[in-house]
């Protein structure tokens, strides 16, 4: 059995957890503010990864340099989707009532379209990036540079967003919208703008996650699905729409993936993750930190 006190396990848990937390954060923002279930979230991770791949392959731009542009690109795509597909639906009170289930279908369609458009344009051939592949060794701990960079960026961006939501006026407005939509309208917050910004931020974060995972594994038009599933597990665990809960749940999943497996066996990986998922839902249906107001 692996040594539970090894720094190697801790590093692995942190990298996995930070990536899960980051991916889920984008999904949670969009759900929290508008009750839109973005099942195409994984496809924007995929698009982010392809953007990083093409920037590197065609223009020799390293993924870490391309990251801000990838975020802008996917954020812009998010805005376009908001304008094109959802603004009208959200404005119409009768349609807005059914938005949660309708958004599921709309995003599902979008996800299939994006997968197949990507397959048509980029072909389904798997690709990968040779980038930051040295190993840093400190004592017994080995850290692949790309994984270390992923940990640092995912953790700092997540922290920056937590601070943004706590101290920035727009951030506070986003939080207010998540907590109580009606009250937000009453106090005169520009809900339309807040929704727009949440959409852009949520999709930008998916692109960021994609840019990061492009350094770690293979890139294909169909790579997004597992990220979407994990992100869903994380935000349901943490409490739908509860951003802090999502971050804790992301980290918890990272710990389960490494320490849980170290204590039992890799055979039990899925049983552990989904077992804990079901257990928490039985004991706390609103999620770890979800309040009754949010988990309806």
């Amino acid at each position, binding site marked *: *059995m*692996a*040594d539970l006190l*090894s720094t*190697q*396990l801790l*590093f*692995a*848990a942190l*990298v*996995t957890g930070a990536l899960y937390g980051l991916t889920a954060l984008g999904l949670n923002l969009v759900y929290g503010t508008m009750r839109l279930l973005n099942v195409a979230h994984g496809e924007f991770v995929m698009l982010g990864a392809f953007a990083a791949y093409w920037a590197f392959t065609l223009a020799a731009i390293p993924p870490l340099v391309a990251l801000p542009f990838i975020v802008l690109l996917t954020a812009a795509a998010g805005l376009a989707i908001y304008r094109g597909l959802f603004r009208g639906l959200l404005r119409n009170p009768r349609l807005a009532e059914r938005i949660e289930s309708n958004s599921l279908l709309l995003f599902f369609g979008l996800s299939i379209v994006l*997968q*197949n458009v990507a*397959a048509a344009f980029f*072909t*389904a*051939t*798997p*690709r*990968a*990036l*040779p980038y930051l*592949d*040295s*190993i840093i*060794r400190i004592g017994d701990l*080995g*850290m*692949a540079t790309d*994984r270390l960079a992923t940990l640092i960026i995912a953790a700092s961006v997540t922290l920056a967003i937590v601070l943004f939501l706590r101290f920035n006026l727009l951030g506070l407005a986003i939080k207010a919208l998540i907590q109580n939509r009606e009250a937000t309208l009453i106090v005169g917050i520009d809900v339309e703008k807040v929704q727009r910004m949440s959409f852009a931020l949520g999709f930008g974060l998916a692109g960021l996650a994609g840019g990061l995972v492009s350094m*770690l*594994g*293979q890139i*294909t*038009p*169909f790579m997004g699905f*597992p990220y979407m599933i*994990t992100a869903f597990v994380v935000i349901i665990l943490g409490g739908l729409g509860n951003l802090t809960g999502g971050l804790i749940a992301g980290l918890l999943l*990272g710990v389960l*993936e*490494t*320490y849980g*497996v*170290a204590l039992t*066996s*890799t*055979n039990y*990986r*899925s049983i552990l993750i989904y077992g804990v998922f079901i257990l928490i839902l039985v004991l706390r249906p609103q999620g770890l930190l979800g309040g009754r107001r949010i988990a309806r």
Partner: protein
Amino acid sequence: MKRLLAGLVAVAGLALSIGAQAAEPVRIGFSLAQTGLFAAAAPSQLNAYELWRDQVNAAGGLDVAGELRMIEFVMYDDRSDPSEAVRIYEKLITEDQVDLLLAPWGTPHHFAVAGVVEKHGFPLVGNSAASVQLRDINPGNIWFPTSAIPDRMAEELVAMMQSQGVTSVALIANQLPFSLEIKQFLVPALEAAGIAIVVNDEYPPDIQDMTAMLSGIQTAAPDAIVALSYPSDSVLYMNQAREVGVNAPFHFVLVGPTIDFFAGMFGPSLDGIVTIGHWSPYKTEWARAKPFFDAYVAKYQTTPDYLDSALAYMSCEILQQAVAVAGLDHDRLREVIALDTFDTINGPVKFDGVSNATTPTSFLQFQGGEAHLVWPESIATAPYQPKEAWPQ
């Protein structure tokens, strides 16, 4: 004079119409997983098909018992669903009335369409399928050129490890049918050979982190590591084994290393890795091997998959050579495919029942970025080299 001219025009017209008839293309049908679960795997097969078609057409066409005819593909997306492939092959045969068939991607799809071709007595040379159960399919209508069948692979892998003095092995396997089938034969073969299995783990296909498992292997310090992995977890394995610093002189990784992006992603880290495969462009005795490799790289700017692309191209070569002798008559084609020996990029191929009876079960090793056959020694293109520690 006018009459003569009119006569000439008529003759020319007749000649043209005969010419047009002669140019009637041979229609070859197949389905491929262009979307869905296997979509990332299918291009290696489609690329080989299209390369073959373009080469044959550029050379004047397919030799159909002496007559040259252009090749035209009738292709459908089976969405990675075997039952969809069944419908498509039924349609290709009855509605589209194609002249010939090529195979879909993967073992489940081959099993699924075997019944269709048997029902219609339509010959089909398969390619990307490998399972001991293939041998249970009724012979006569479908043939499998691969020699990477799990039971034979397990035997040969153990023989290869024994030749290297391996006494202990760490075995990890993805819980997917092909890898588990190999494992099912590998464990008893290792036990019979007296090789201790010091780590024996399985993991689900969606695994995201292997650190704990790899730390266990590091503690056990075996002579050999056998990772029965698929592409995405092969990437994970390579990355994390290097990060954790798990070294063993004998290092086997099942599916992935022969896909083009692997060499690009891992560079020198790939050197020393042994993997599945019975074809290499560096086998000079197989005169067609290197030209195929070069043409593929020139057309697609990626290397062919040493297993799937090679098998797909072999199946086209076998069909082409059989059609040259037998024409398009199904009975005659079945007879020729069953009895003749074919000259392929993988050397001579002759079938016994549904299986390839000539190509030995072999393994590739990456050396200086090239995939060389290292086992069995009788067909090796380079001697096996123990894997050095991962580069930092």
